[in-house]
């Protein structure tokens, strides 16, 4: 099931790349591939690179559709069958990790962390950089990782303190202070 999902995701992502490549070719043609004197123009590299992206992406989609087996890592060809098998066995993602979480739970965590990151970046202009990321640290540790509240706050305060000292004070980076003029 997982490999089918990955296959579909792979085809979808590569199709997006193909579309980006084609769009770049069209854009590049509008910028002008060659100048009047025959020299290359600003559109040359976008057309060339966009064309190559589209070409390889379409070719990759075809191979992904035709592929039946998992592709072999060429580096494994340098090892004999026994070592390659050992490496493959060790590289396999365990379903249950040391914290006893299943793959499904880890997938949920991943989605939660991505959501928290998007919210944090959106909140920087409102709350300020340090406060927004402070909330990110605590929420991630407590809600996603199920850590205790007090140690999580302590870790967040220390991490933010060090970050503020290094970037805000030593390097004098003007971190966004948000609507309320906080950190």
């Amino acid at each position: 099931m997982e490999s089918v999902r990955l296959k579909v995701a792979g085809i979808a992502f590569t199709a997006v790349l193909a579309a980006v490549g084609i769009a770049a070719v069209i854009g590049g043609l509008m910028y002008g591939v060659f100048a009047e004197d025959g020299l290359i123009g600003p559109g040359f590299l976008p057309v060339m690179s966009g064309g190559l992206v589209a070409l390889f992406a379409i070719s990759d989609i075809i191979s992904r559709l035709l592929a039946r087996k998992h592709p072999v890592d060429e580096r494994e060809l340098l090892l004999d069958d026994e070592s390659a098998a050992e490496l493959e066995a060790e590289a396999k993602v365990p379903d249950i990790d040391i914290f006893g979480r299943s793959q499904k739970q880890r997938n949920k965590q991943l989605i939660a962390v991505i959501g928290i990151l998007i919210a944090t970046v959106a909140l920087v202009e409102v709350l300020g950089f340090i406060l927004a990321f402070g909330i990110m640290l605590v929420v991630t540790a407590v809600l996603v990782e199920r850590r205790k509240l007090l140690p999580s706050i302590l870790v967040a305060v220390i991490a933010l303190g060090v970050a503020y000292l290094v970037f805000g004070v030593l390097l004098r980076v003007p971190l966004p202070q948000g609507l309320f003029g906080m950190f």
Partner: protein
Amino acid sequence: MIDNLILGFQTALTFENIVWCFIGVLMGTIIGLMPGLGSTTGVAILIPLTLTLEPVTALIMLAGIYYGAQYGGTITSVLISTPGEAASVVTTLDGYQMARKGRAGSALAISAIGSFVAAIISLALLMALAPPLADLALNFGPVENLAIMILGLVIVVSFAGGSLKRGLMMASLGLLISTVGVATGFSQARFTFGNVDMLGGIPFVEVMIGLFAVGEVLYQIRIGAAAPIRTRFKDMVITKSELKRSAAPIFRGSGIGFLLGILPGAGSTLASFMAYGIEKRVSKNRGEFGRGAIEGVAAPEAANNAAANANFVPTLALGIPGGGTTAVLLGAFTIYGLQPGPLLFETQPALVWGLLVSFFIGNVLLLVLNLPLAPVFAQMLRIPYGYLYPIILLTSFIGAYSVSNNMFSVVLVLIFGLIGYVMKELDLPVAPLVLGLVLGPLFEKALVQTSALGQGSFSIILESPISVVILIAAVFFAFGPALLGRVAKRLTAKKAEEALTK
């Protein structure tokens, strides 16, 4: 040569540079052993911290992170069978088995000794080879430079692992991303969609932080973690027989590592795999391989360190990065206003030789740090990842913001973080994309100059014997490995068939 070395020592042995070298190797070791962080990520995240330093000091520190991470990456390979660095993947085979037998200390000690010996051998070779190569490259014009860049891109793609066309696709995507903004020599803004932040192009530090740091953290969250094996100080004592068994593998590994590392893009990962494969064939103790053979740790560890140093030959002499981390370092050069390439040896001798000599100092510091302190470093693996990765994310975003004091950088890190995660999940190589992005502006400049020299025609590239040779090499690297692989497969199948008939 002697004058250059003296100049290098004078530059590297200042108090400030030694302190930053120490900070670099220490942070490199820690970064290398942290799951989800590698030398490329570490260098990318920490570039913003070095913006106020002198270029030579900044590069000494960043290079320290690079080779320090090679040492640190081994600790996780041995103790939790999770390589901190791709180049340490093969070390998990025997290193982890040694650790399970209570010989984690010996595995860590031999990897530190092997890495040190390999570093010293490869540095001597690097110092001997890079300047003449740079002298040769000084005769290169735009046509040859264009051919060199094509060669660099092709080699990175062919050695990136996985499918060749996926590598080529990612390298082309890197080139395409580099076209955003106003290019030098043109007045037209490309693909900016009216956004003023994009006029200057897509900044690669933010792209790298996103792809490597954020992308890797997200990937680690999905795959989960393994339990570490504890190691003690008294386990660090390595026996005489173990040292004797490791001597030849270390020298063989150093040679293989240097030869592969010198090729732009081949990198230390391939070197470590090849060193392990060869050692398994030639070793007297080949029966122990996979069950905790010390040779299986010594050879790949020596190889990956030698390759890491050899990577600097094309980076410094030709301006073509040897791998992912040297691509990031190449980007750092341009941030400090330096143009990497053959001219660097002439215009910035103190910087180049100071940097090279600092490798010696850094490796001595690493040996002193790693031999007695590997168990202490290993304690860091006990920091719960649930606390660690939010801090890595904070450092990534605040670091990216500080490059240009702009929220656009933060948004870019988020976008490329998600792209990096998807790429990792789908097994799409990141190094070719980074190389395409870094080389893009130089590639376009060489294209413009070549078309001007040829008055609009690119056939001029076939008129220069040097560029023809370089392009033939590029064709070989593009198709050679696949062809050789097919021939080898056919031969093996034929042999098996013959054996069956017999």
